[in-house]
């Protein structure tokens, strides 16, 4: 039985415990206690505790445990000694790591769009460039069947047609839906949208079938089983579809975002679906591994050439554009795209800013660590004298670093969790920043910590352990000279920081300046007093009555119907002069005679459309006039687009797109027929509410079965066009504040170093009669010099970057020179205040306290 005890019990306790037990046993023998053997055993078992076990004793007596314990203890002691610098170091790391991870996670999120498709690498979208300036994402209806039937290496083809603004109902539930897509039945074989109910192979085979997402099932059917239920659809007529499948909601990282999939076979008849005239279908195909791209592309090209009878000259320009599905979101910029687009430049910018912030914060961290290390040079000296090897000192410093890094890592995890809702709200994307939900974060963090440990820990560790004890213990003069060698690196880093913060400060000013300009620039028409009604099939039926009734509403001064409106995509097509075969590309707006009046546009020559005459008439803008009729008066000339007509007027150029682009040629045509998409209403801003309620009443009266019409303000539509710039403005503002914080910490580090280095000099000078302001000046001087260099770098840098950013806009504000000066002054103030705060302490110290050590 003793062996049990010997097996677990640590040596330290063994003898005494065993002795006690034996003595107790002897006693119980004397007292004739019953079951004494059993009790003996019980006692042995009860003696078992972790603290007495061999393992525990081994751990706590292990030299590494002991040194770790002391390292942690010393780390916390040092941190506690100087709380401000500890806080700054900690905050720097938390920020640095946090921002870097945020950028990394976001980039990862964006880069992994459509990666969830099992065969993502083999799926392509077919687009083509017919020789215009941009490739088209959409193609003809007949392309899909052609590829499927004639091209080897292609496994399957799926076509999509998005349909916006569809009215869907089931019994009493009626909604306008924006994301109804038509799709081939092969879609579920090719793309990995997970089906919960229904058969993926057959779900879309029948023309009357519809597949809905889980949340739509909930919206329309509640807890009922949706399978086999009828849904009423109003698109181009009154259709009913039967629910044949329910899929999981489309993942956020899918560029195709739909809530309903209708069978594409319900879209026109067989002939229509094979036609090459209908140019709005998105064609995706899946290839085998390592397909022969040249053959695929050549076959498609040839078919295009035969179908469209392309001239030799245009054949040269024609290109097929195959985009791998996972690149569509981030790397394409095609005409007529359905994709929810990301911008790869945003990702580059974010990643570089994240890296910058990380680098700067590490620099600050290292700087402050070295400076704080100076205070410990005596400790290092003493440790060395007592016999510590350089290696063990490096370990000591590295481990101290690690403790801080781990703490900061935990801090940044917390930070990410805290800002997750804000980030999701801001980006509108379900980016998961929670390390529990997204374990990659933890791995990345581990990598970052290890990397930083090596990068930011090794330098101070080696530097601090280098001193010879005799030097340190003797005088600090020589140590300082050792440090001044690294002064150059440090100064460079500080200059870099100053310049970067300056650039960001100026950057945020330039961005908000430009945004302000975009918002207030007069576009050439009135955008603030226009209400838009999107017309769909049902609304189009009674559009004339609708217009008349709307005109009756008090507060409405005018209304017009047009194919599109400024701010929305306007189609681009070839227009030619009568008798001239050359087509000139122009944006085409089909309008009625009220368009110019409703939008308050200025006619520069000629006149407005003739209201009564029922024939084709054109009004072109000045750019189109210059393009088509460079040498003669355009009024009265004949133009050909679908039909021949007379040019009756020229309108002044106005910005019908966002101000990123300059004004393109525009042709407005009054055209008998109804291909109208929008009803624009000019209203008096003072009676907005009356107008809105009036429209609501009309909607109820004219279309009692439909949900209320959806109304949009044109100016908010224009605001939407600058969404990414608005976001940039916020981001750059946040980064600006952050770099200011980082700069302050940087200055803090260097200023404390300077003050430390010069403390003796200052003390002696003070003894000799120098005044406090003189000393303060002495300390600040160094910074002015650094600042000057930083300004020399920062101002041109900011200028170049601003120019680069602004080049995206056809309309730019001037870069405000005054703001450059103000930003530079602000920067100087920030730096001087911080360093002044640190330096004033030293400059004010009683010389006796400093000199008493000598």
């Amino acid at each position, binding site marked *: 039985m003793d062996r049990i005890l010997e097996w677990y019990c640590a040596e330290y*306790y063994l*003898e005494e415990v065993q*002795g*006690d037990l034996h*003595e107790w046993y002897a006693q119980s023998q004397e007292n004739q206690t019953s079951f004494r053997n059993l009790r003996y055993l019980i006692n042995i078992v009860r003696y078992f505790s972790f*603290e007495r076990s061999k393992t525990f004793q081994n751990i706590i007596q292990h030299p590494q445990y002991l040194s770790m314990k002391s390292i942690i203890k010393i780390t916390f002691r040092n941190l506690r000694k100087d709380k401000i610098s500890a806080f700054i170091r900690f905050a720097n790391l938390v920020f640095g790591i946090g921002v870097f991870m945020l950028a990394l996670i976001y980039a990862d999120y964006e880069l992994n769009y459509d990666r969830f498709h099992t065969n993502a690498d083999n799926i392509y979208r077919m687009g083509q460039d017919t020789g215009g300036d941009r490739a088209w994402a959409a193609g003809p209806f007949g392309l899909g069947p052609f590829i499927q039937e004639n091209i080897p290496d292609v496994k399957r083809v799926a076509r999509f047609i998005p349909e916006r603004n569809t009215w869907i109902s089931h019994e009493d539930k009626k909604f306008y839906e924006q994301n109804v897509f038509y799709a081939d039945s092969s879609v579920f074989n090719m793309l990995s949208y997970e089906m919960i109910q229904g058969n993926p192979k057959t779900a879309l085979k029948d023309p009357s079938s519809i597949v809905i997402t889980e949340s739509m099932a909930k919206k329309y059917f509640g807890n009922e089983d949706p399978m086999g239920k009828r849904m009423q659809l109003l698109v181009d007529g009154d259709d009913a579809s039967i629910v044949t499948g329910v899929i999981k909601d489309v993942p956020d990282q899918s560029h195709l975002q739909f809530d309903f999939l209708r069978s594409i076979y319900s879209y026109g008849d067989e002939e229509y679906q094979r036609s090459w005239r209908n140019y709005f279908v998105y064609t995706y195909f899946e290839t085998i591994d390592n397909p022969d791209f040249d053959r695929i592309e050549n076959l498609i090209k040839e078919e295009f050439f035969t179908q469209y009878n392309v001239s030799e000259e245009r054949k040269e320009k024609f290109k097929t554009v195959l985009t791998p599905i996972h690149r569509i979101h981030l790397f394409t910029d095609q005409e007529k795209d359905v994709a929810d687009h990301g911008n790869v430049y945003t990702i580059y910018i974010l990643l570089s800013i994240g890296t910058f912030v990380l680098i700067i914060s590490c620099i600050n961290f290292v700087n402050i660590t070295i400076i704080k290390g100076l205070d410990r040079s005596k400790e290092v000296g003493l440790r060395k004298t007592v016999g510590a090897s350089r290696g063990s000192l490096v370990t000591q410093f590295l481990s101290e670093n690690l403790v801080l890094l781990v703490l900061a890592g935990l801090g940044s995890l917390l930070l990410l969790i805290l800002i997750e809702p804000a980030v999701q709200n801001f980006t509108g994307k379900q980016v998961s920043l929670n390390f529990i939900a997204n374990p990659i974060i933890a791995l990345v963090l581990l990598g970052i910590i290890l990397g930083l440990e090596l990068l930011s820990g090794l330098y101070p560790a080696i530097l601090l352990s280098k001193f010879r004890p005799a030097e340190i213990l003797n005088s600090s003069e020589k140590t300082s000279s050792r440090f001044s060698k690294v002064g150059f690196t440090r100064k460079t880093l500080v200059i870099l920081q100053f310049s970067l913060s300056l650039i960001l400060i100026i950057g945020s000013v330039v961005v908000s300046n430009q945004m302000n300009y975009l918002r207030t620039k007069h576009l050439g028409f009135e955008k603030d007093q226009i209400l838009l009604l999107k017309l769909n099939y049902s609304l189009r039926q009674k559009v004339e009555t609708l217009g008349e009734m709307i005109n009756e509403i008090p507060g409405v001064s005018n209304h017009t119907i047009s194919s599109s409106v400024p701010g929305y995509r306007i189609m681009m097509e070839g227009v030619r002069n009568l008798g001239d075969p050359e087509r000139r590309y122009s944006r085409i707006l089909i309008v009625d005679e009220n368009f110019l009046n409703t939008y308050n546009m200025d006619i520069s020559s000629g006149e407005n459309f003739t209201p009564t005459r029922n024939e084709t008439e054109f009004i072109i803008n000045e750019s189109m006039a210059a393009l088509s009729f460079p040498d003669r008066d355009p009024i009265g000339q004949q133009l050909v687009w679908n039909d021949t007509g007379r040019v009756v007027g020229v309108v002044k150029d106005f910005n019908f797109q966002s101000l990123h682009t300059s004004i393109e040629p525009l042709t407005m045509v009054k055209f008998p027929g109804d291909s109208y998409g929008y009803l624009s209403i000019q209203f008096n801003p003072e009676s907005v509410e009356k107008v809105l309620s009036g429209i609501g009443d009309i909607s109820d009266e004219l279309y009692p079965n439909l949900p209320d019409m959806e109304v949009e303000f044109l100016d908010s539509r224009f605001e939407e066009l600058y969404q990414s710039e608005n976001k940039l403005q916020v981001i750059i503002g946040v980064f600006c504040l952050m770099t200011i914080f980082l700069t302050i910490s940087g200055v803090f580090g260097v200023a404390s170093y300077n003050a430390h280095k010069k403390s003796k000099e200052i003390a002696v000078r003070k003894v000799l009669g120098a005044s406090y302001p003189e000393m303060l000046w002495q300390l600040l001087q160094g910074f002015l010099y650094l600042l000057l260099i930083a300004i020399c770098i920062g101002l041109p840098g900011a200028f170049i970057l601003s120019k680069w950013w602004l080049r995206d806009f056809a309309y730019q504000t001037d870069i405000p020179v005054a703001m450059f000066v103000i930003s530079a002054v602000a920067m100087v103030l920030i730096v001087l205040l911080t360093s002044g705060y640190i330096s004033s302490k030293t400059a004010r110290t009683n010389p006796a306290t400093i000199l008493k050590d000598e």
Partner: protein
Amino acid sequence: MKGQHLGELEELTLITTAILGESYTVSIVNEVKESTGRNLTLSAVHTVLVRLEKKGFLKSFMGGATNERGGRRRRLYKITASGYAAMNEAKQLRTQLWDKVPALTFEFSRS
């Protein structure tokens, strides 16, 4: 400071050690049994002794071996000055609290 507070068993052990002068596990168990009638287990007392030593209330040294112990030495514990102070403090705290207890008068209800 943390850990200055004495638990019941700790106090008991400390006092017993003070009574005995030099004590070890078995002697404490015996003494407690004699004076209070309570049966303590060896391991419990040992744990308490180790803990008290860590707190600095006891100090220990290895004492002589006896036959009953199979030739093994015993670890003898002796009370330290701070141990005595802690003991005293615990006592005073108790007295203070007792002083605040009002004399109880029992009311008998006539029912």
